[in-house]
């Protein structure tokens, strides 16, 4: 099989109940689907949670993923996004000796800022498209980041 594998973002609305997350992840592992990232949070003022799953696969695989997800009893809706706004977040820890003003300027170009300054380190935060987050992380290498934490994606249909 030489079907093209594509990156896709799938949103799943599920009932907030025990073990619902493992039902989703077990489905992926049991059927050999790939999870690039997974973000979960309750939907405000409801009994539902929203999962944003970044995955990859051929058209046939993605179709199976959405159909199999929908078969799970606690799943209300499954969206396979075509046109969407997608954001990821990153937190980066720098030594205090690096140039705060340079990094602040960079962060602002990527929807971010300095969020914490301590005695020995300061922490920057950005939130942007996954590809732009990649770029930013490449760019800040020269400022000797000590630690980088990156979130999964969240997405909304336009």
């Amino acid at each position, binding site marked *: 099989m030489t079907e093209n594998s594509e990156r896709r973002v799938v949103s799943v609305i599920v*009932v907030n109940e025990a073990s619902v997350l*493992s039902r989703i992840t077990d489905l992926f592992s049991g059927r050999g689907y790939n999870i690039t990232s997974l973000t979960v949070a309750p939907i405000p003022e409801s009994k539902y949670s929203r999962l944003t799953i970044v995955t990859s696969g051929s058209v046939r695989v993605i179709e199976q993923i959405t159909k199999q997800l929908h078969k799970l*009893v606690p799943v209300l809706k499954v969206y396979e996004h075509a046109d969407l706004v997608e954001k990821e977040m990153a937190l980066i820890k720098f030594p205090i000796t690096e140039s705060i003003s340079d990094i602040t300027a960079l962060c602002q170009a990527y929807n971010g800022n300095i969020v914490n300054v301590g005695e020995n380190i300061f922490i920057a935060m950005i939130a942007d498209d996954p590809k732009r987050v990649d770029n930013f992380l490449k760019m800040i290498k020269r400022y000797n980041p000590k630690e980088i934490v990156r979130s999964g994606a969240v997405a909304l249909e336009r």
Partner: protein
Amino acid sequence: MQISGAQMVIEALIAEGVDTVFGYPGGAIMNVYDEIYKQDNFKHILTRHEQAAVHAAEGYSKASGKVGVAMITSGPGFTNAVTGLADAYMDSIPLVVISGQVPMSLIGTDAFQEIDAVGISRSCTKHNYLVTNASDLPRVLKEAFHIAASGRPGPVHVDIPKDVTAEIAEFDYSIELGLETYKPNVKGNPRQIKKAIAAIAKAKRPLFYIGGGVINANAGYEVRELIKKTGIPAVETFMARGVLSHDDKLLVGMLGMHGSYASNMAMSETDLVIGLGARFDDRVTGKLSEFAKNASVIHVDIDPASISKLVNADYPIVGDVKNVVKEMLELSTSINSNKYEPWRETVANFAELHPLVYHEDTDRIKPQWVVERVGELLGDDANISTDVGQHQMWTAQFYPFSRPRQFISSGGLGTMGFGFPAAMGVKAASPDKISINFTGDGSILMNCQELMTAVEQKLPVINIILNNNYLGMVRQWQTLFYDKRHSETDLSVQPDFVLLAEAFGGVGYRVTTKEEFDAALKDAIEKNIVAFIDVVVERLENVMPMVPSGGSLFNMMLLERKEK
């Protein structure tokens, strides 16, 4: 009313109309068993192994069309039952399996007989629950029965900690189902159905491809009607044996790995596959890229995930087969059955060219003969179960099935040891029919402890062991594809099956001639007690025809012609 969790389980089973429960008690489920002791609304059948309890519930469900119920304890009780859950999941059998769990306070402490049961069953059940409050039990049990039986049926597992079965709470089973996220589509899109009918009317060589979903949906008689009205030939999957009667002129036969030449050729030559409740299993399609290569595909299935999973459907119809076929019947007046006469002739020629046969032997009994003979003697009077292996395929090929739910076997999972306990469940559901289990000398040992259950509960299953002293199907593959290296498949050292049956209080026969076979079967039926009929058959017989795994349906290995 305020009752204990254990009492709630009993009340729910009664409210669901359950008349038979299969199970095995243990520490964590004792409160529920104490309530079983106090009631006489349903019968409890004590199997001698939890795996058998679930298989028996499967057999009961397959024969009756009702939800099968099994009850087991925590830890090893539960893990023993997992094979049954997986089997039911693969074959879409509606079950509710209730297990005991260690008390809430001990969960997660590696307590005695503790296992993460819902974690294990998640991948082999349609849905599962760990009940943490007795007040949740009425809702959970009601949902469990609903989910098991609706949509694409399947097993539902309910795990109940011991303290929850002791907890007192309000029980009201008249509550509404609150399953807002679970709404199977049963109707079938009318526009798609119209399009499908138009495609059938246009096709030159259409072919019905009947799957086990037709039996699950109780749509057998509607499907018979549709096939009769349209005059279109039909092939059955292994799971669908009996949907059409063996003497139906439009039944081409079983297709797939051990399907008939005519069925597999018809599938290769058709220009329109009409798939009803079939899931294009790899044992059916062979090499996917060569499967029904020149055909468009109509696919009717209750499970949207089954449609276009392996073979692209040009006319996908999500819905209950019974509803969809009823609608098709109404629209079928636009189909002219005379038009398919040349196609019917082509199919008939395929059947004549290579009929489903075996070579008779004067010295030894051929296993196929045994199946045919039981068919001649009992026909519709028997329900037929099987274990897994060569005997299973010979049964599917050679038994003259005449109705849905007559044939009960483990399809998707291929579970050795399924047959005997399933046949007990079949007998419990359908006591008026003779319950026959075709098995092999390999399979029968996997659940032979159920002799005790069958004796105690007076479930006179007749186990016909097609004994070739081999793990036959694996031996066949070794012969054909591993240069006859029969690695660990020689079962020459076997117990005396006659003595084994008798040790448990059943009856046993050793059969080496055809006359002895007839006499043994007759005697077993008359004695009306669990029986082993150990039939010594030709050792090296192969199941033919055969499509080698991953091969194309039209490239079958056929029976070699006998030299004169």
